């Protein structure tokens, strides 16, 4: 690079305006900061684009921009509407694309685990889990049983907090401001517990190749015991606020219905697929970790609409509480980390690991070329595929129903955009 360095402090420059603006030459983006018209300023490049951007009589293209109050993250939807009814949608992603896969190709194996946390940031442990499983397959490492139990325990706690948030945001997107506060109470308690265990409230960075970072400690156990003693009643009370709420039920019932065959063709996994009737849960379908030793049911609902997805999440929280109980009773003694060298050089090879996260199947495909950095690190996120189904679920409904369907699918844009 032979370009000259720019001075880093521009406050003494008098020939350029003091506030940044789009005309400012110091705005260091080579592209023009874009105008966001719904219609792209160039001719349609694909069939689907031509079909979508051809506006019929009475139809209108509006832009639900990357910044909108629906708090799942930054996503832009171009909607073709006819009055209040949605005719078609074109989701535009990439507003949170951070290039994690490329960064992980230049990082050590241990560092990649940290980089995966911010993907599905409400369920960070589930983001780390397939990565450590894939590396353990590449290195042929056996994880101690106590570490596996701690992984399951912390994972299920994270699942409860993620589902609680999903339920809260479902209500928030429909206009209910109270359930989100209750969800955040649950989430804050669980997250303080996990902070006592892992050191961090959100992006935990707890799983390691061969185990977990630290053993259970007194603070975690006391918070956990305290919470478990009132968990069931609290959860039934707080999160069941909406089960019989007439507005919530009537808005969600029959909305965004999908059947199992279509869901499989759209590559759905997780609670969204189980709400259509198929009891596909990777913890039972392709058991990993110590889930074969634990006794829990797979909640399934047959209707496939938004209300079924919501009720399924509430059921899953109850099953997670059962799993946590059993983990605490069956926790074995032993080390929490396998003995591994500092510098890890696996054999050249490929490994895939998929786990059941709160949104679906979260997977990592790691290709190693014998060095201490992964050669290719592919992250598969379930919300990416759920968002693809907007075109099936929403046309024919009203614009406000887009919000309900979006919230019931529970996407997290950090994972979608990587």
């Amino acid at each position, binding site marked *: *690079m*032979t*370009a*000259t*360095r*720019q001075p880093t402090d521009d406050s003494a420059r008098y020939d350029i305006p003091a506030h940044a603006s789009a005309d400012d030459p110091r705005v*260091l*983006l*080579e*592209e*023009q900061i*874009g105008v966001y018209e719904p219609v*792209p*300023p*160039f*001719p349609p*490049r*694909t*069939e*689907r*684009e031509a079909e979508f951007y051809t506006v019929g009589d009475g139809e209108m293209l509006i832009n639900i921009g990357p910044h909108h109050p629906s708090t799942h993250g930054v996503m832009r939807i171009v909607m073709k509407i006819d009055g209040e009814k949605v005719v078609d949608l074109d989701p535009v*992603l*990439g507003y949170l*694309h951070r*290039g994690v*896969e*490329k*960064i992980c*190709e*230049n990082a050590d194996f241990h560092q990649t685990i940290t980089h995966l946390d911010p993907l599905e940031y409400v369920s960070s442990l589930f983001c780390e889990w397939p990565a450590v499983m894939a590396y353990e*397959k590449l290195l042929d490492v056996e994880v101690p049983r106590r570490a596996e139990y701690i992984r399951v325990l912390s994972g299920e706690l994270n699942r409860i907090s993620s589902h609680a948030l999903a339920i809260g945001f479902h209500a928030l997107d429909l206009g209910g401001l109270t359930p989100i506060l209750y969800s955040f109470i649950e989430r804050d308690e669980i997250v303080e517990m996990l902070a006592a265990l892992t050191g961090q409230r959100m992006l935990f960075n707890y799983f390691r190749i061969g185990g977990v970072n630290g053993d259970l400690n007194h603070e975690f156990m006391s918070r956990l015991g305290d919470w478990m003693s009132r968990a069931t009643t609290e959860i039934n009370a707080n999160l069941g606020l909406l089960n019989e709420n007439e507005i919530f039920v009537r808005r969600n019932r029959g909305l965004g219905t999908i059947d199992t065959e279509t869901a*499989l*063709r*759209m*590559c*759905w*996994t997780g609670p969204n697929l189980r709400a259509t009737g198929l009891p*596909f849960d990777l913890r039972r*379908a*392709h058991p990993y970790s110590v889930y074969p030793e634990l006794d829990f049911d797979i909640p399934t609902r047959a209707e496939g609409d938004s209300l079924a997805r919501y009720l399924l999440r509430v059921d899953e929280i109850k099953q997670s509480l059962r799993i946590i109980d059993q983990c605490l009773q069956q926790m074995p003694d032993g080390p929490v980390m396998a003995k591994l060298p500092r510098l890890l050089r696996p054999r050249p*090879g*490929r*490994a*895939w690991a*998929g786990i059941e996260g709160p949104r679906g*199947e979260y*997977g990592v*495909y790691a*290709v190693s070329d014998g060095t201490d950095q992964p*050669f*290719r690190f*592919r992250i*598969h996120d379930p919300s*990416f*595929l759920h*968002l*693809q*189904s907007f075109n099936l679920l929403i046309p024919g409904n009203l614009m406000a129903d887009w919000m309900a369907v979006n919230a019931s699918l529970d996407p997290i844009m950090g994972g979608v*955009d*990587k």
Partner: protein
Amino acid sequence: MDRRLKRRLESRFADRLAGPIRQRHDETELRIGPGDVPDVMRALHDEPELRFEILADLAGVDTGHAMQVVYHLWAPTTPDWLRVIADGLSRDDPRVPSITFLWKGAEWLEREAYDMFGIIFEGNRDLRRIFMPPDYTSFPLRKDFFLPDDAARSPGAGVRQMERTHVPRDAPATGHIRRTPAG
């Protein structure tokens, strides 16, 4: 490690395999050429003994010599994951038939592989960029796209000046985007 699956796949796809079927831990790996993708995937999906109905992932890989597209499938008939590697795509013009006729959900996965590698999926109705802005002119996950050590030290605050000139065919013809690397 399902030996029966290996025997079944070897007997069914004997003529299309581009390499031996490997198995490690709970994964079975199948290598085929890019032209065989639609037939093999349709057979894996439809046949009652195989029934790989769940597409878990579709990934592009740039090995430095060639490009690959890697599919991961799950079936209730076997305890293994199945990995199908479509190997041997050229790095200059990687093309592979699309599997959106089987799984509509693969459309966006293929868009992502196109956006990151430049792999053209023939038959995908919507092959445009998904993560990068539509007028971006590089494919970030290719091995010839380098990250600088410190993006802050570069005047462009990123690698825009280091982009290669592999311009995608669908890049719009706008006047303000440079086609050659700057500086």
